[in-house]
Structure formats: structure tokens, C-alpha cells
């Protein structure tokens, strides 16, 4: 389910938001890299869901509890409040119904951690403005017709959606193209222009 080929700089940020020993569900866990990091660094009780069979098999071979499943259709099988954190890293933009997925995350977990590429980043904006074509960048290398990222949003769009589903933003981090954190006190508009990706910690 994870479709960003970028080195996963968001993993460290996500790990820093998770309390040790907690119960974590990673939706779109890929080959299990983040779950493994969380188990070793934070001693979490971790579970995963992954769309690609290859990712699932690799995760299970690593000794992780991962099942094959789809964020859009399979979250309904999880009980309410079954987890302390539900993580959706670099996957939201690839879901068919992001708002529904976010609602489900907040039903299953006390908190949700969502990371996503920011379509409001200046490179994306200038690419579209100057070339008049759908942006294809190093971090988002797909053409419009073959991209799995069917629901791009900007940081500002995402903040709007958190309000619509009644989620509280407990903390948020924006990372620039080098993976460095942007200044914490900057306004959303600044992050929306210079944040290459964002990580949100949400509470229902």
C-alpha cells in the first residue's frame, strides 16, 4: 500500500510520537520496516495490514504479525479502540475514500498517526504552474495515468479534513525535501509551501 519510493524519513518522526509498550496497528506496513523499528526501539505490540502480498510475506518472514488487506475495505474487521495508535504512513493518498479511512483509524485507535506527501509543496506548485503538466518529481515519480496516488492533498487540505471528522491535532511535523523538520511555530501556510511531507498525530 505504501507507494512513496522516498527513503522513509517519516519513520523516525512516527517512532518519536509512539509511547513505549503501546499497541500499534500499521496500516499499509509495506515490508514491515516501521513495525520492526517500533518493536525494537519502542517495544510495541505491533500488527500490520498490507495490500501487496509480497510485502505481507516479507513482513511475516521477519516475524511480524501482518495480514493481507486493504485500508479501504478491511479496517471494519477491527474492534473499537483495539489499539493505542493506528499508523497510516504514506498511504492516505492511495486510498479510495481517505475520509472514511481516517474515520476508521480513529475508531480503531485512541490515536492515529498519518504521514503523507504534501501536494502543496512549492516544487509541485511550480511544476504545474510553469510546465502546465501534472508534476512528476523525484519523490512522486509516477505519471498521472499510472499513479497509485489517486487522492493527493495538501497540508491545508488535510487540516480541513481533520476538522470535518472531528479529530484533534495533538501534534504535527512537516519535513522539508532533505527530511529536516520545519520550524514548529511557523503558520500552516508556511508548512504548506515548504513541507515536502507531513506527519500528524491525531486524537479522536
Amino acid at each position, binding site marked *: 500500500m505504501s507507494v512513496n519510493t522516498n527513503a522513509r524519513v517519516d519513520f523516525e518522526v512516527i517512532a518519536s510520537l509512539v509511547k513505549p509498550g503501546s499497541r500499534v496497528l500499521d496500516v499499509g506496513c509495506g515490508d514491515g520496516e516501521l513495525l520492526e523499528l517500533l518493536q525494537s526501539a519502542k517495544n510495541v*505490540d505491533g*500488527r500490520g495490514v498490507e495490500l501487496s*502480498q509480497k510485502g*505481507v*510475506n516479507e*513482513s*511475516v*518472514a*521477519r*516475524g*511480524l*504479525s*501482518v*495480514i*493481507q488487506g486493504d485500508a479501504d475495505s*478491511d479496517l471494519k*474487521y*477491527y*474492534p473499537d479502540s*483495539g489499539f493505542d495508535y493506528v499508523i497510516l504512513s504514506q498511504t492516505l493518498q492511495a486510498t479510495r475514500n481517505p475520509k472514511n479511512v481516517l474515520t476508521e483509524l480513529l475508531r480503531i485507535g485512541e490515536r492515529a498517526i498519518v504521514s503523507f506527501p504534501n501536494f502543496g509543496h512549492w516544487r509541485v506548485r511550480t511544476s504545474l504552474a510553469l510546465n502546465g503538466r501534472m508534476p512528476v518529481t523525484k519523490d512522486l515519480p509516477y505519471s498521472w495515468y499510472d499513479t497509485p496516488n489517486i487522492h493527493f492533498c495538501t497540508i491545508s487540505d488535510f487540516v480541513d479534513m481533520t476538522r470535518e471528522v472531528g479529530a484533534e491535532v495533538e501534534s504535527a511535523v512537516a519535513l522539508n525535501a532533505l527530511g529536516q523538520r520545519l520550524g514548529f511555530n511557523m503558520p500552516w501556510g508556511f508548512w504548506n509551501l515548504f513541507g515536502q511531507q507531513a506527519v500528524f498525530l491525531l486524537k479522536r
Partner: protein
Amino acid sequence: MTASTKVTIDFVSTATIATGILLNFRVKMTKASRASATTDQKIQEATNPHSPVVDFGADKPLPLDSGVSLSPFRLAYQSYGELNADKSNAILICHALTGDQHVANVHPVTGKPGWWETLVGPGKPVDTDRYFVLCSNVLGGCLGSTGPASINPETGKPYALDLPVITIADMVRAQAMLIDHFGIKQLFAVIGGSMGGMQVLEWASSHSDRVFAAVAIATGARHSSQNIAFHEVGRQAVMADPEWKEGRYLEAGTVPRKGLSVARMAAHITYLSEVALHRKFGRNLQDRQNVTFGFDADFQIESYLRYQGMSFVDRFDPNAYLYMTRAMDYFDLAAEHEGRLADAFAGSKTRFCIVSFTSDWLFPTSESRTVAHALNAAGASVSFVEIESDRGHDAFLLDEPEMFSAINGFIRSAARAKGLLAQ
């Protein structure tokens, strides 16, 4: 005797034909005497097996789902590796419908290697250098545990159909008594495929605190209507054979060969996939250039199936086949919990690994996914892998590297969690 001689000749010619096309099946049967010798061996293994046995006497009756209790009864088993001091390293293997306890040793009747030597052995994913691996012949079977070919102590004759119907839960209850016999409180793992997988799910549901990790392969939480249908065809074939003698063939000195072999032929088709059959046999003819406009085994697939059917008769008891198929038919874990499968696993601390195969149409992936979703809903720890394979249901017995690496990863991780393996 005339009839059985004729059957023997049929069998030999079929086997010889099959040898031609199936070198990898290592067919050794070339003498007519072999067939009756193995039949004697088969009866011998049912009543006085090579395997060690545990006899449960009148003081340890087994309550059965049918409402009666079975006493005395016997379980025959094989074990590999050493049980550690605190008895925490035991792995129970549950065998499938026509499997047996000979997981990783030469079979006493067929002379073939153990049926799961790809998975179980020194250095294998189920490492016998590290774990104490146990497999018992299921209750109702025919390799030494109490089954329809065993002598009924009340009559001095084989039970035949006087043995009460056995369920998956009964098999598991008997296995739990075997585990008690060894002084094992909790099994490190229970592993099985197909009917063995049903036992795994039953273990994890009814004896959840005694199972640390569970691996259920190519199985489901219930037997589907289609699967019951195939089993019924098989049973009817056995019972329609005049040599079956209302189940009393052992006393009559007959063998319902035709019936059991037809049952096996039908079942065998369900263990394969269309793709695998086509690749192996296509529409190829057997030792002939043209069809014969008759009912000989013109096609290789016919010859192959006939061979599979007849060789099965040499190692399996026809009545046991009725009991085993019935046990699978009756299995429905959700029904035992008012239709909610998740309730079968409520509060489970067991770690689960569910494995399915893309081309298995007997226990398709959807059955495994149903189990995985129920485990999710119960908040249990579950891994679920679907292995890409075109070899059908039987893939779980074959060399499937992705299955091995998933099971290996799962078992190693469980072993670390249980403190059996350094972090």
C-alpha cells in the same frame, strides 16, 4: 478370490503404466504379491503399530461430542527431538485426512519418506534439533490409534461402524490427553494443514491457554457445502462396493478396493488445480498413438488417477476414510459459538499464522481470510500469508519456499517471545 486376483492384476498393470510417466513417484510395486502383503501390513499397523502407543484405560475415558464416551482407547504417535527440562519446547503436528503420524520418518507400510520432511527435521523451519516434535495418529484413524479397524473390547471383533462418530474436537481432546501424558502444560506450537489445520483452530479455540503459537495452513473454520459434497461421493463409493460388507469386510476377509479407490480418485482431483493437471498431463495419451474407442485408461490423467486410487487402498482403511471425512464435514467452529467465529477466539493470547494458496479451490483463500478477520475482531495476534502457487490444495505438502520462509519467520519470532531463542 477370483475377484481379488483380477483386481490385483488391474492394479499391477495400472501401476506399471503409471511408472512410465511418473518416475518421480518412485513406484516400486511390480509384483502381484506386493498388494496383499501391504494389505496385511496395513491391518498390522492399525492394530499393532510400529509407532509407540499410549493406552488410556477405564480410568481415563474420552468424552465425545456425540454424547457417548470412548474407553479404553489408544493413541499411536511419533516424536522427534528432545523435550527440554521445563517442557516448553513441544510442537504438535496435526495430520490431514489421509495423513498419519509418520511426519519425518520412513513410512512402515509404503516405505516412502515422512510426509512433511520438507518442513520438519534438523535445521528445517520446524527444527528437531531445537524442538520436541510430536505427531499422533488421529482418533478414528488407521495407523495405530483407536479407529474402526481396532478391536472392540466388548465384542472381540473390529469396531467397524460401531465406533462412535469422531469429530475434530474429539481428536483434539484425545491429543490433549496425550500432551498431559507427557506432562506438557503448554505447547509451544500446533501446526497442521487441511484437516490438520482444522485441529489447529480447534486447539486454539478450545484449549487456547495450552497453545502459544498456532499455524493453520490451507484450511478453514468450517467444511463448505461443496467439500461435504465431495466427501459424500467418496463415502457412497466405498459403501456401494459389495466387498464393503456393511463395514464388516475385515471379518469377511474382503477389501472394498474399487470403492475406496474411486473415493480417492475423486478426492485427489480436489487436491490439485486445473493448471497443474494440464501442465502435468494435458490431453496426453497413455502409451498409445490414438484413442481406442473403449474405456481403457486412454489418457495419462486416467492412468494416474487409477494408480493413485489403488495405491491408497494399500495403506488406508476404508472405514477410517468414512470416519475421517465425517469429522471434517461436521467441523464448524463458528456454529459452536452461535455463528460468531470471532467468539471462538475471544481473549486469545495465542499467536496465529494463517497460510493459504492461490490455486487451492478446496480451501480457497477466502476461507483463510474469514479466519484472519475473525482473529482481528477478537484482537488476536495474526499473520496471514497467501502463497502464489498453481499446485492446488496439495501445495502445503510440497516444496514451497515462500511458505517455508513465512513459517520459519513466524516460528522464530514466537520462539523469541517465549524465550526459546536468544533475542
